[in-house]
């Protein structure tokens, strides 16, 4: 294919203007939090639950991107090499999520009923072998230790190849990715139990880990799409063309359906079984969070399913970004529905200034860290053996 009309790359500089914008976004989030705590004097559980929700969302964006990169590396795909540095840098934000989780630690009593060790009912007592504070903390630390190790080690392998290409580069990248996938397969499920499912301590679902994972994956794909479109627009990565967007759009489309598939699989069996201790989870959500319950389904499945069906939709940057933004908000709502009914309860939970404003702080923090890491390496891994193929391919 002819390589025409590809402008020269503009080296990325993390400029003052961008920093100002991120500062404004962070300030909006902080004001929303301070307003909630001091002026509106919202219930404590609602504030802690919001901090918890946003910390999870922050983590999921990086973790999903790391998974996306490793799974593509393992599958020996070539299309993603041009946008690989975006995923690498997103993955490096993982350890900073610890900070946001730790901020919410004093509120654990408000979030998790099983932390009230002095008066546990029979069901929660039987779960203490797994749901107890020391073991929970050990798991918390080990998840982050493992994920951080892989995020930084993979990045190191990738960046090293820019300066001294080695023959065993791909082999090393692949085997490390493989180990990450194995570990992620287990930790993604168990961390979802620890941080989300145990909010509704009496309830359980064996599908829950995959369900949360699929939502995480879709959310991080939509962020990758948004960043790719922006970087193409500002010529930071002029090699990104409609083929890359088409592939990302296919992932957004496909995994939105995958998310809906897991959602209905979990819902359908509980609905069919009709056992009170299982149905309580959905009764709570259908009765008291009725609007959001249906909005969740519409925004995360019906909308991307219909909007991304055609080929043209996936190749049009502006159109694709609008869908990505909607789906990203949709998965924030999905997490909201997973946390709030159990942690806050329908009498106190609401969507107000806090819920709308606070994510801006976390988004600004995410973008700040992402850009700092992105600036440190070349925007594209030019020495990657598949680099040329990634710039020169087409979707048939």
């Amino acid at each position, binding site marked *: *294919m002819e390589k025409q009309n590809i402008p020269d790359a503009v080296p990325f500089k993390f400029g003052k203007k961008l920093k100002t914008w991120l500062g404004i976004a962070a300030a909006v989030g902080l004001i929303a939090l301070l307003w909630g705590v001091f002026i509106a004097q919202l219930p404590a559980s609602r504030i802690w639950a919001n901090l918890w929700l946003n910390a999870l969302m922050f983590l999921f964006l990086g973790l999903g991107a790391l998974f996306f990169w490793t799974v593509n590396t393992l599958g020996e795909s070539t299309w993603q090499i041009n946008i690989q540095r975006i995923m690498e840098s997103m993955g490096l934000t993982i350890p900073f999520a610890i900070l946001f989780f730790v901020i919410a630690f004093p509120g654990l009593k408000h979030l998790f009923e099983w932390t009230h060790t002095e008066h546990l009912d029979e069901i929660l007592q039987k779960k203490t072998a797994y749901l107890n504070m020391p073991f929970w903390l050990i798991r918390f630390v080990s998840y982050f230790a493992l994920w951080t190790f892989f995020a930084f080690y993979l990045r190191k392998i990738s960046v090293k190849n820019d300066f001294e290409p080695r023959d065993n580069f791909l082999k090393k990248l692949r085997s490390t990715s493989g180990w990450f996938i194995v570990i992620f397969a287990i930790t993604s499920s168990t961390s979802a139990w620890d941080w989300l499912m145990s909010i509704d301590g009496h309830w359980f679902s064996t599908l829950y880990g995959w369900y949360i994972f699929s939502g995480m994956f879709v959310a991080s794909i939509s962020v990758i799409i948004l960043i790719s479109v922006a970087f193409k627009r500002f010529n930071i990565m002029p090699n990104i063309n409609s083929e890359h967007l088409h592939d990302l759009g296919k992932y957004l489309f496909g995994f939105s359906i995958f998310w809906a598939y897991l959602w209905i699989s979990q819902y*359908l069996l509980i*609905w069919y079984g009709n056992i009170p201790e299982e149905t309580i989870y959905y009764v709570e959500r259908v009765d008291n969070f009725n609007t959001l319950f249906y909005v969740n389904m519409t925004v995360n499945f019906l909308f991307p399913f219909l909007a991304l069906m055609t*080929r043209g939709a996936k190749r049009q940057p502006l159109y694709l970004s609008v869908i990505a933004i909607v789906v990203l908000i949709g998965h924030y709502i999905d997490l909201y529905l997973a946390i709030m009914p159990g942690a806050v309860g329908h009498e106190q939970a609401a969507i107000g200034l806090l819920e709308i404003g606070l994510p801006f702080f976390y988004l600004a923090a995410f973008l700040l860290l992402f850009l700092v890491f992105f600036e440190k390496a070349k925007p594209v891994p030019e020495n990657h053996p598949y680099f040329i193929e990634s710039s020169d391919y087409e979707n*048939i």
Partner: protein
Amino acid sequence: MRAIVYGYFTDELDLLNAVKELQNKGIRIADVRTPFPVHGLDAALKLRRSHLPKVAFVGGLIGGTLGLFFQVWVFTKGWPLNFGGKPFLSLPSFIPVTFELTVLIAAFSMGIAFLLRSNLGPGSIPDILDEEVTDDHFQIILSEKNNNLSETELVEALAATGALDVKHVNAEK
């Protein structure tokens, strides 16, 4: 009776270059046959996009609608059964069958439409000029019909691009 001239390449990049070379000379290419999809070939030949996705969409729509309405009819009118005290019209339980039928009818309609359109259905006689196109040969076919050149000129032009084993036959279509 019109003459058909054909030759093959063993590499897809040679094929792509030959296609461009022939087009630069103003020669129209009747068909190109490859063992697998070659990137950039569709654009070079200026082929229209396939209508197969539309067939799949319509097929899926028909399958999903029929599947859903059949279940609604069966469980409310045709033969209502009481399952664990649930209402007769229970949409969640219809979802799996609806989904499966959407996929099934979409896949069938797509497969059948493809076979009919490509003349590969049962009873059709495939016009294969070189069996190796299913293996490792990339074939270019030129026809006297849409070119103003004579048969020998076409053979020369194709051979000049580096095509191997250039042959010509008289074909009816």
